[in-house]
Each structure stands twice: as C-alpha cells, then as structure tokens.
C-alpha cells in the first residue's frame, strides 16, 4: 500500500471512529492534536503504540490487511492515550480498553477477532474486575498518573 493509499485508509478509519458513540471524542482529539497515524514495523509483534514525542500512532504493518473494524478498534485504544496525554496508568489502560470494547460492540456485527472479543469480555465484567486483569499484564503501572 502506498503512502497515499495508507493515508486515505486511516482517514476513513478515523472518520468511522468519529461516527461511533464512544469514538467521537477520541477521533476529535486525534484530529485536533494533528496526530499522524501510519503503519510501521514494530518490535515484539506489538499491535500498535502511540508516541507522544513524535505525535503519532503507529500500527503494526502486519495489520495492513486487517478489517476496518479491527483497525478502528485499535485506533480507539491508542487514540485514548492521545486524548489523555499523560503517562500511562492502570486507569488509563482501563479506559483505553473500554473504548476499544465499546467501539467493537457497536461495529462488529457478526465479525469475530480473538483479541477484540477477549477485550470485550474483559470490559463486560465491570471496572473492578477488568482492572484486576490489567494489573496482571502491567503490574508496574501506577493506578493513576
């Protein structure tokens, strides 16, 4: 995919995110901050990350053929970090996963995706239970930052 095609794809993804209930404020934050979104090589097979220093969200290029709904969901997560604009925390990760789940719930229809569906299940259990699981993954993160 060329740069123009990639840029158009992420513009479409951003517009679709903006049209979801949970994603509107996130997409607005990405646009207002001028945060670039691109595919790139990411070590350790990480899905995506946001880099405040470079003001960009990088999505693993291995997902270039992923469905728009999956990309929108990941953009919801990383866009939450852009929106919060402060060091990560268990609370921030919870809200990023929650945004993912809400967007996925709204868009998925009959589509399935192992990671997206697992996050949806985790968030469906409520904040206390979801944060418990997030701590298992990121035990060094502070509760709030």
């Amino acid at each position, binding site marked *: 995919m060329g740069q123009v095609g990639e840029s158009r794809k992420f513009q479409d993804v951003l517009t679709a995110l903006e049209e979801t209930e949970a994603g509107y404020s996130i997409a607005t934050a990405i646009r207002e901050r001028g945060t670039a979104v691109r595919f790139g090589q990411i070590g350790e097979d*990480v899905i995506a990350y946001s880099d405040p220093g470079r003001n960009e969200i990088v999505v693993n290029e291995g997902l270039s053929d992923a469905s728009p709904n999956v990309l929108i969901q990941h953009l919801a997560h990383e866009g939450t970090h852009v929106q919060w604009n402060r060091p990560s925390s268990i609370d921030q990760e919870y809200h990023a996963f929650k945004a993912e789940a809400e967007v996925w719930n709204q868009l998925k229809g009959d589509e399935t995706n192992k990671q997206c569906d697992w996050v949806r299940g985790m968030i469906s259990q409520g904040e206390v239970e979801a944060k*418990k699981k997030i701590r*298992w993954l990121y035990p060094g993160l502070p509760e709030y930052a």
Partner: protein
Amino acid sequence: MIERGYVVFQSGKSQFPYTFLYPAGWKTREIVEKGYAGVFVAGPRNQAGTFSVSFTVGVMFEIVQTAKEAATAFVSSHRLAFGCQELGQISTTVAGRPAVVAEIAYSMPLPLNSVKPQDTLIRERRVFFKRNSHLYELDYAATEEDYETWLGAFQTLVESFAFPEEPTDTLSYRPVVTAVPQPVREESPEYEAERDQSNE
C-alpha cells in the same frame, strides 16, 4: 509467629483493617475505588514474560449477595465472557467466617497487545466471604505453568487472613508449614511495566 519466607501485610488505607501473610519479595499496592478497596500483590512473571502471578485481596462495600451467590456470579460472568471451565466450588472458613472457594480456568491471548498472541491457560481461585454487609474476595491468578508452584503461598494468605481488632479466639489463623516456592525468575524488572510509553 511469622512463617519463614513470608511477611505480614497490614492494610493502611482500608477503613476495615486486616492482615495477612504474603511471600517476601512480592510487591503490594493498595487500591481504593468507589465502593471497593483492595490490595494487589504482584509476584513473578511467567516464563514468557507476559503475565504476573498475583494475589488480590478486595472488599466490596454494601453488597447484598451472599458469598455463595458471589461465587456463582463470578463463575457465570467468566463463563459468559471467556467460556471458562469451572473446576469446582467448596466451602471453607476464613477468619472464622463461612467462605466459598471457586476455581476456574480460561484461555487468554497473551500478550494481549500482540499481533501473534498465544492462547494461554489462566487458572484463578477466588475465596468469598462476608463480614457484616461487606463482601471480601481473596483471589489467586496464575498461568497454568505456575499455578501449582504458588498455590501453597495463596493458601498461607487465606489461612493467615485476620481482622486485628477481633479477639484472637475468633480468628482462623493457624501457623502452617508450607514450602516457600522459588520464584520463576528473580530479576527485578519482572515487576516493572513492559514499556514506559502508552503503547499497546
């Protein structure tokens, strides 16, 4: 008497103080949320470095559910969310109170933020009991590979759990002889987040 290899935790933030033993070297952190207070006790990472063995002690305030109902709801919600397998429920006592133990197993894609996650079996044991209107939950979670290694340490936590303001003769604590397992990995970075940016 404190068992070798364990240290005493005494809650400082909770309005309902309690104590318990946990393995020396593990990290504790108190958590206060609306309607909930707890302690997260983080142990070593699994061999893949994707999951921390952990204990969580939590208090849910003003809960109508009985311990048995809470245990059933715990299993049901995990069955609905992750298709968990229930490994059993048994009755026991904690701090002199009737308690229910539920154990489940379910698959988790790890790392959760990876394009190539591995289905990893998580086992979780949770002990529920009530004190007045509050629901207490003592939780143990580990990957299948580490579960048996630290189960004895969790049993020590459960058996040592006590409310310090209560007369000693109402407590269920009794010294137990439990082998202290060796950590899977000993490097300190295992207690740190995997990254310092907000990457997922």
